[in-house]
């Protein structure tokens, strides 16, 4: 393939991606693709989005060197790309502002979104408030309980939160329910999908909106250290923050890309969400990708202490990067992630989201595969405020 990896725009990434959705949705996907591809090349759209990010999101996000954390986990230099400092507290806002602008361009007045941890739901509700759009967020009933504070945030922002009681009552079922809503209301409604999964053009478009993370980080690292990092690390559920930071470095062959998935109780148990490590190729939520499934192709329930990684599928581009060997993916257990959450809090004064803590836990693994003194950039994709109840119970603090 002569095309650079950074230039792939779908609908397929190698054997993965495509559009496996009911026919009634095709017109909306075509319209979205056409609108997005035009916006992608339109300087006016790009400058409008850049302005929003500057004046509302709070970009560019800074990079913080985490020296005390680094010293505690090995012999590396660790740099944190601070997406936790964005408005609403995670990387999710990057994509949401982009898609909300597209919603306006398409003349739609209502957005729907799925959410697991609640971060994407909060970001969507925020954008809806900012742009004056109606907003309905689908959230698995299990997740509404473990992320009750985010439910309150969404409601305060004026969104309707619909608890989903079908299937495993988590993120995958919230996506199903959002798709059902979309089929019925497609004329007025944009489905603001929050990750790089789903039918084309979502994996491409959502990746591009998060590409700003990697682009900024690459320039910041060059400025700060004078060279590219040896590795870039991120947590992977659906994979949006990971693909966003990966893409800034994807054509730099010396930079290793590491994605850390949720291994729950361990990838050799049944209680995990390590789709790339333990899944097999299949079709889920409109794309061909790796899926946690049984021998009949029924989706398995995933398990993770972090709602945001609790997903039995993964973005198709990650499936491609895995097969290609361009990115490495490794499972991190709940206990390792929680330990890393505590460690970063105590060594750096930064409380990360539990999702993000999976990437931080991965650093001790990297210290055994990278030369001493190497630089690693971790996408600090979200802050941990929303996880205080889980962490409080886990560490016996409440």
């Amino acid at each position: 393939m002569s095309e650079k990896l950074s230039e792939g725009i779908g609908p397929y990434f190698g054997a993965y991606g495509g559009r496996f959705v009911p026919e009634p949705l095709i017109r909306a996907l075509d319209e979205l693709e056409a609108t997005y591809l035009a916006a992608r090349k339109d300087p006016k759209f790009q400058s409008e989005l850049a302005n929003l990010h500057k004046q509302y999101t709070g970009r560019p996000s800074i990079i913080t060197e985490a020296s005390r954390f680094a010293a505690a986990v090995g012999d590396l230099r660790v740099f944190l790309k601070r997406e936790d400092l964005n408005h609403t507290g995670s990387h999710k806002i990057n994509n949401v502002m982009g898609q909300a602008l597209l919603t306006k361009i398409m003349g739609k007045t209502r957005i729907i979104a799925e959410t697991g941890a609640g971060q994407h739901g909060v970001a969507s509700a925020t954008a809806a408030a900012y742009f004056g759009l109606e907003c309905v967020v689908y959230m698995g009933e299990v997740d509404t309980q473990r992320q009750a504070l985010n439910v309150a945030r969404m409601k305060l922002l004026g969104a309707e939160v619909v608890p989903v009681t079908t299937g495993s009552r988590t993120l995958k079922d919230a996506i199903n329910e959002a798709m059902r809503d979309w089929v019925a209301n497609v004329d007025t409604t944009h489905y603001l999908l929050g990750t790089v999964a789903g039918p084309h053009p979502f994996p491409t478009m959502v990746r591009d909106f998060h590409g700003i993370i990697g682009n900024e980080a690459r320039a910041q690292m060059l400025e700060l250290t004078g060279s590219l990092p040896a590795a870039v690390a991120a947590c992977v559920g659906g994979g949006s923050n990971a693909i966003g930071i990966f893409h800034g470095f994807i054509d730099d062959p010396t930079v290793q890309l590491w994605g850390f998935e949720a291994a729950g109780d361990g990838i050799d148990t049944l209680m995990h969400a390590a789709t790339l490590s333990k899944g097999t190729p299949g079709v889920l939520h409109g794309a061909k990708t790796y899926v946690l499934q049984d021998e009949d192709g029924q989706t398995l329930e995933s398990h993770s202490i972090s709602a945001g990684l609790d997903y039995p599928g993964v973005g198709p581009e990650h499936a491609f990067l895995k097969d290609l060997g361009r990115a490495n993916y490794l499972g991190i257990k709940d206990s390792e992630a929680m330990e890393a959450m505590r460690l970063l809090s105590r060594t750096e004064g930064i409380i990360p989201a539990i999702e993000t803590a999976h990437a931080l836990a991965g650093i001790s693994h990297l210290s055994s595969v990278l030369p001493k003194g190497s630089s690693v950039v971790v996408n600090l994709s979200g802050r941990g405020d929303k996880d205080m109840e889980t962490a409080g119970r886990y560490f016996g603090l409440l």
Partner: protein
Amino acid sequence: MISVESLLRERKSKGLGNLIGYFPAGYPTVEDSANALIAMAQDGCSVLEIGIPYSDPVMDGPVIQKATEQALSNGFKLKNVFEIVRSIRSQSTVPMLVMSYWNPIVSYGLERFAQDLKEAGAQGIITPDLIPDEAAEWIEISQNLGLERVFLAAPSSSEERVNLAAESSRGFVYAVSTMGITGERAQLDALARSVVDRIRMFSNRPACVGVGVSTLEQVREVNSYADGAIVGTAFIKAYEQGGLEGLRAKVNELARGLD
């Protein structure tokens, strides 16, 4: 064995309408579902649509979701669908289509699934989340095996896409009556008729209307302009409420709309 398409045409040429009856495989058990489907064929369904339960049925409303979830929790396995087809075939010449989301078939192996289905005695597959654009392999395999394949055309489909669905389908084109998921609707959208009209513009492939069709009046109305009415949710509800006898009564009632 007669194909779905030939049967639809034959009945239409005699001035008869068609009732395509959906029931989930394995609901509530494998044996019960086979008996239910046999009864549906005996009492007036001209074609059977055997639904394969799937964990993530995005096109289905609450009634079908609940029934297929129950089938799965009662232990339905994909291979059971071939037993069900065989069991129906041993008692009836009714043409049968399997309705399946794409992943179970991918996971079983497309070619193997198609062969096993043919061997069991079914005529083809309805694929709600496989569009013709992604179906090159399935089109080739079904062509080689002589299986029928049904794609969807929707109110939102462009003329180009309606044409693609008609050209790619064998058996019939599934005209989605409304923008929404399966389930009963008090009134059928005028959209249903417009989808069928657009199919007719491009093709003489039979067109059957599904999603939201549940009453005698709707079955009669749909058959006045289309080649058949597809009913699912109403049959499951009748079965839930009245068991096999309740189901038979509903089939008999709707079949009165075919004369």
